[in-house]
């Protein structure tokens, strides 16, 4: 049976994994290559590396980080953050990424999705959508620039356009839940997952195994991503998969 994927995300700044606490106090959480390998060995189905470096100087180390991380990784590996052109994407693929994730650049120019998909295949193109609930409504707006600016687009409609443009997967982050540990936004995830044919990765709000069970069962997610709950304690990933599996969700375990 096709299993639900549990994806470990590494937020990287200047070549180091960082963990934000309430979007401040970025704490050093280790070497990306070592953490990626450790997560893979403890049962992660996929690794996402997001470069959150604010400056060009710190971003310059990204390709080296990707190369080192990819060297010992034999599960799918996605890289995002700051990819604005086909050439940026090509460089990241050459360094060993299997998929790239694009967000602001795709909103600014949806044809970028098509260009990368035509060269590298749709399976290699993940469109990341940062969605924020419109006050008091069951609708969500897509945000750009790392959540700093409203894009003026309905998140569901944007997901459909991204699919039509050639995206292979949607990485859907609930800005309302991100960093809270209060659980994924199952309603947002379900609305988007039911609107597209491509897989939807839920993100934002993971705090425990029950949240994963809910987003797979009620949110119709194909995969779920988390960062901070996996940091510092790798063994939790394996425990988490066992717990999710015990509740009847198909997961790759043992693996």
């Amino acid at each position, binding site marked *: 049976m096709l299993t639900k994927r549990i994806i470990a995300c590494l937020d990287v700044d200047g070549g180091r994994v960082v963990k934000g606490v309430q979007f401040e106090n970025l704490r050093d959480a280790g070497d990306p290559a070592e953490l990626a390998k450790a997560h893979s060995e403890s049962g992660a189905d996929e690794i996402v590396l997001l470069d959150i470096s604010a400056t060009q100087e710190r971003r310059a180390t990204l390709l080296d980080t990707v190369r080192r991380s990819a060297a*010992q990784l034999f*599960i799918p590996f996605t890289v995002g953050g700051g990819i604005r052109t086909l050439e940026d994407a090509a460089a990241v693929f*050459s360094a060993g990424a299997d998929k790239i994730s694009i967000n602001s650049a795709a909103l600014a120019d949806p044809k970028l999705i098509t260009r990368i998909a035509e060269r590298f295949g749709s399976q290699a193109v993940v469109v990341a959508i940062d969605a924020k609930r419109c006050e008091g409504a069951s609708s969500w707006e897509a945000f750009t620039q790392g959540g700093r600016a409203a894009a003026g687009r309905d998140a569901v409609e944007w997901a459909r356009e991204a699919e039509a443009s050639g995206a292979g997967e949607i990485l859907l982050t609930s800005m309302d839940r991100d960093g809270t540990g209060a659980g994924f936004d199952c309603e947002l995830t379900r609305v988007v997952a039911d609107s597209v044919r491509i897989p939807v990765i839920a993100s934002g709000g993971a705090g425990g195994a029950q949240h994963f069970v809910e987003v797979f069962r009620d949110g119709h997610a194909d995969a779920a991503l988390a960062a901070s709950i996996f940091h510092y304690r790798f063994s939790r990933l394996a425990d988490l998969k066992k717990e999710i599996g015990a509740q009847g969700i198909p997961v790759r375990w043992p693996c």
Partner: protein
Amino acid sequence: MIAIVDYGAGNLVSVKKALAWLGAECAITSDLEEVARATRVVLPGVGHFASTKTLERAGLKQAIADSIGRGIPFLGICVGMQWMFERSQESPETRGFGVLDGECERFPASVKSPHVGWNQLEVDSSSRLLRGVPSGSFVYFTHSFRVPVSGATVASCEYGGRFSAAVERDHLFGVQFHPEKSGDIGLRLLSNFCEL
């Protein structure tokens, strides 16, 4: 030397990385002479079945056919496996290699397509490629079209009905999933291929 045939579709770095990890000498190439000299040929592939047209135009189809004729082991991955068959519903006007009988088909409307993620194999224990890979093993798939189960099938997978996850005939091998992205199980398979 293992030739990883490059026909301009997709990213072949991961395949090379996995083979190199196993200690195999390999090169990504579209050079006809290099393909002719290779002791193993791997044809990866992503994206659209129509992209395999390049193989014919570039003379690579003939080079691969010659190599197979000399008994050189061949491994097709994903679209590379689909290309081993006669045709695909994805691009009816594109001819496949046709070394195996059959046509690649769509998934039924009852399941989401593409089929992306880790799914389990039902393995025929006589397979040489899958030696040491037990039934129930998880491997990573990402594809929109599939090859029906046939006499060449040595592993099948369930997603909207069973389909061919791996095929094998003589020294011809094909896998629909990505061994280079399938953890230890995938490395085992690639290691088997290197040792054939």
